């Protein structure tokens, strides 16, 4: 065993390892496109996801601009239908689902685990290529009379509309396999590549979240795949499985679709829980409160998430008994979710809170996600849902969760791991400004939509009553503010890449393993499998060092 002090010396000397980080190990575009290194694949995912986010964001701004006035503002109604379909499909399938697991998870998972790579590096690269191919098919739909079905592809409209639905379906089908293979890889990695001492209950909570997510990806996504495949065949040759005129049933499509797509919202939000579970203890300088409860509540959400799909179909003619059961299990999901929220708050209690950008985003998440989660309970109440179904209330609810939850946590994680990924620190001041602007913009965009929804503004409508115009305009102004915040974020993050590498190995004083390699990490992550002897949230030994502007481990302790 190396003596701790020697280890500490090595740990605090990032400059020496700059000569061979994963970023500089190989050169040339092919060394990226053919790489099997999980870190590079993670970075490629990150860039692609951000590109798709720009696309989906532009669609969103066009939509909001159109809604500035009733009737036509900038586009025709058919174009509007195509825009909201593509906004939904791009944001769901290209951004949020792969955002945290595939982009951040790929980079962080083996490092946090103390492994050299994921279990199947080739499969990992194949997942990225499947993402690219799937995205290409969505773009094919975009340029050839884009689909106008909404991202849910409900029959019978999706089998009868004249727009190019099949490329969009095929794209989503392929993206599903990308997601499945990522999940498969992660489960195997966490079972088989844990180094000595890394027991299940010493794993960072981000890994527990990724594990739960991977279970959902593996169990739910194949059902979406077969559903989309059946829909493609239905649309292509008219086999009648979803067509009542031929003995089929369109509601069966809804069941199949939500059997995937409700668990899929947990694919989107559970990794977000994982990210903030890392950030709250690190920036409170305090051990996480209720580790096992947070870990196991992720698993509970993954399991319960499979049993609630019917709450999307309260008005689709399912039996009252079924609807009652679905409604009851929907309420149950609030319990593990609230366990997490209370534990995060208790973690901060009497902590020494550092309000750096990742922590600001995590607090932002806590606030906004709670609104999104609680309004989900409203929608799970059958009597209320009949009133609110397909209104802006639903739109506001899931944007608070998806945008305020998943995207905010994605930003939190991106800011948290950015110095580790690229070896550069970003401009902290602009980070905080953009975060604040985003917070104002997000609430300004979506809070008026709750009010619109309760007053009866239906979702997906091109036109609306005069009396709704004020709230719609507030919402649009909020969307523009968010656009500005994202432009600022893109400028200072991408701008940081032009600086020389200046990030310390451990800028935040976290105790998880990824901070024990230099920033950026070495090509092989760890020379030897690390031996883990304590939990991931012990901060007592990490002290701030002004010279390196990072944290260093006190070398005095020894066992």
């Amino acid at each position, binding site marked *: *065993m*190396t003596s*701790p002090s020697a*280890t500490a010396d*090595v*740990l605090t000397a990032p400059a020496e*390892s700059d000569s*061979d980080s994963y970023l500089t*190990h190989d050169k040339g575009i092919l060394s990226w496109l053919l790489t099997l290194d999980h870190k590079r694949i993670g970075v490629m995912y990150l860039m692609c996801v951000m590109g798709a986010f720009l696309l989906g964001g532009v669609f969103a701004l066009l939509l909001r601009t159109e809604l500035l006035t009733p009737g036509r503002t900038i586009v025709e109604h058919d174009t509007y239908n195509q825009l909201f379909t593509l906004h939904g499909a791009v944001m769901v399938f290209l951004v949020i689902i792969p955002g945290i697991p595939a982009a951040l998870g790929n980079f962080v998972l083996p490092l946090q685990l*103390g*492994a*050299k*790579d994921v*279990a*199947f*590096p080739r*499969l990992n690269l194949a997942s990225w290529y499947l993402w690219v191919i799937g995205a290409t098919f969505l773009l094919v739909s975009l340029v050839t009379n884009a689909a106008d079905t909404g991202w849910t592809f409900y029959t019978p409209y999706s089998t009868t509309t004249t727009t190019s639905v099949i490329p969009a379906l095929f794209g989503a089908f392929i993206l599903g396999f990308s997601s499945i293979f990522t999940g*498969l890889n992660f*489960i*195997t990695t966490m*079972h*088989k*590549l844990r180094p000595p001492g890394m027991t299940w209950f010493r794993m960072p909570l981000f890994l527990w979240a990724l594990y739960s997510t991977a279970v959902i990806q*593996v*169990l739910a*996504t*194949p*059902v979406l795949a*077969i559903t989309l*495949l*059946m829909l493609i*065949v239905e649309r292509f*040759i*008219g*086999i*009648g*499985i979803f067509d009542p005129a*031929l*003995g*089929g*049933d369109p509601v*069966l499509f809804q069941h*199949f679709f939500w059997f995937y797509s409700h668990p899929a919202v947990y694919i989107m939000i559970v990794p977000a829980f994982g990210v903030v579970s890392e950030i709250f203890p690190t920036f409170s300088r305090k051990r996480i409160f209720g580790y096992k409860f947070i870990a196991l509540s992720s698993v509970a959400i993954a399991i319960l998430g499979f049993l609630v799909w019917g709450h999307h179909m309260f008005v689709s003619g399912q039996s009252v008994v079924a609807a009652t059961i679905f409604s009851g299990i929907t309420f149950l999901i609030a319990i593990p979710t609230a366990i997490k929220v209370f534990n995060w708050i208790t973690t901060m209690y009497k902590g020494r809170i550092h309000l750096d950008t990742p922590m600001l985003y995590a607090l932002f998440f806590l606030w906004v996600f709670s609104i999104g989660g609680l309004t989900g309970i409203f929608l799970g109440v059958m009597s209320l849902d009949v009133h609110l179904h397909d209104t802006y209330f639903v739109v506001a609810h899931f944007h608070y969760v998806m945008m305020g939850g998943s995207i905010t946590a994605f930003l939190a994680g991106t800011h948290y791991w950015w110095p580790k990924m690229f070896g550069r620190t970003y401009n902290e001041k602009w980070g905080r400004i953009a975060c604040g602007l985003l917070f104002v913009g997000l609430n300004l965009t979506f809070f008026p939509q709750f009010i619109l929804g309760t007053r009866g503004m239906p979702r997906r409508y091109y036109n609306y009553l005069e009396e709704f115009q004020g709230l719609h305009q507030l919402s649009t102004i909020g969307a523009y503010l968010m656009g500005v915040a994202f432009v600022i974020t893109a400028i200072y993050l991408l701008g940081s890449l032009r600086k020389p590498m200046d990030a310390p190995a451990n800028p935040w004083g976290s105790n998880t*393993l990824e901070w*024990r*390699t230099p920033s950026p990490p*070495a090509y*092989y992550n*760890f*020379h*030897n*499998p*690390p*031996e*883990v*002897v*304590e939990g991931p949230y012990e901060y007592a*030994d990490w002290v701030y060092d002004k010279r390196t502007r990072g944290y260093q481990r006190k070398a005095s*302790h*020894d066992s």
Partner: protein
Amino acid sequence: MAQLVADQVPPHEPSGGHGHADAEHAANPYLAHHFDTPKHQFDSGKLGIWIFLITEILFFGGLFCAYAIYRSLHPDIFVYAHYYLDTFWGALNTGVLILSSLTAAWAVRNAQLGEQKKLIFNIVATIALAFCFLGVKYVEYSHKFHEGTLPGRYFNPTHEVWELESYQKAHGQHGSATAAEGHAAAGHEAAEPAGHAAPAGGEAKQPPPGAPVRPRNVGVFFSIYFCMTGLHGIHVVAGIITWGWLLRRAIRGEFGPAHFGAVDYAALYWHLVDLIWIYLFPLLYLIH
């Protein structure tokens, strides 16, 4: 407390090291850098392929679910339509696939023991049996295209169910065999307008007394039939490609007692493809 030890590349090592398992990695070119031992690699692969098989079960699960729903909603369609399937071909294909599972399992054994020639033989046999399965499937599909027993709105059979040998066998109606030829004296018309769909003899055929009335939407059975057997067939083709790739590697002598994972995983996949057919056969062909 010693916390974490020796978890990073020493700064003086030139290009990142393989670490302590260097000797193991040098001895086995198939051992990937992130696994410690061949067994570690094999176990990981095994877990991976099992998870993949779970996703396959769920993938087919959607279709099995559709089958269950439509069969419970329209049992009459399923009873009526199954006469159009030939149990002989289905049973033959079941036998073919079970035999191919045997050769696949045998190939794993050969790889584990390093029996090079037997390994190649068994992989070739598995591929041959898989092609045999597809051949039978081709016979069945082309028969259905010919007879008009097609999915959904394309269902337009050239023969009514009571004209089929399978129906006559099941019901022992030898008398109706002559009726099916279309030569019997004119009887009373059946209520169902079945005649328009029977251009075979050029003349309207008379159903025998007691002949079943064709339910509405028989095509939905064939939609499910073609979706399920078609998806299964695609998996057989994927299996052939996989076995072909393994054959190439086997000829190069890549497999042996220290390295047989790929054959094992392919065989597991192949058994699942076989197993799905073992469920499809009774569900589609043996309905009562």
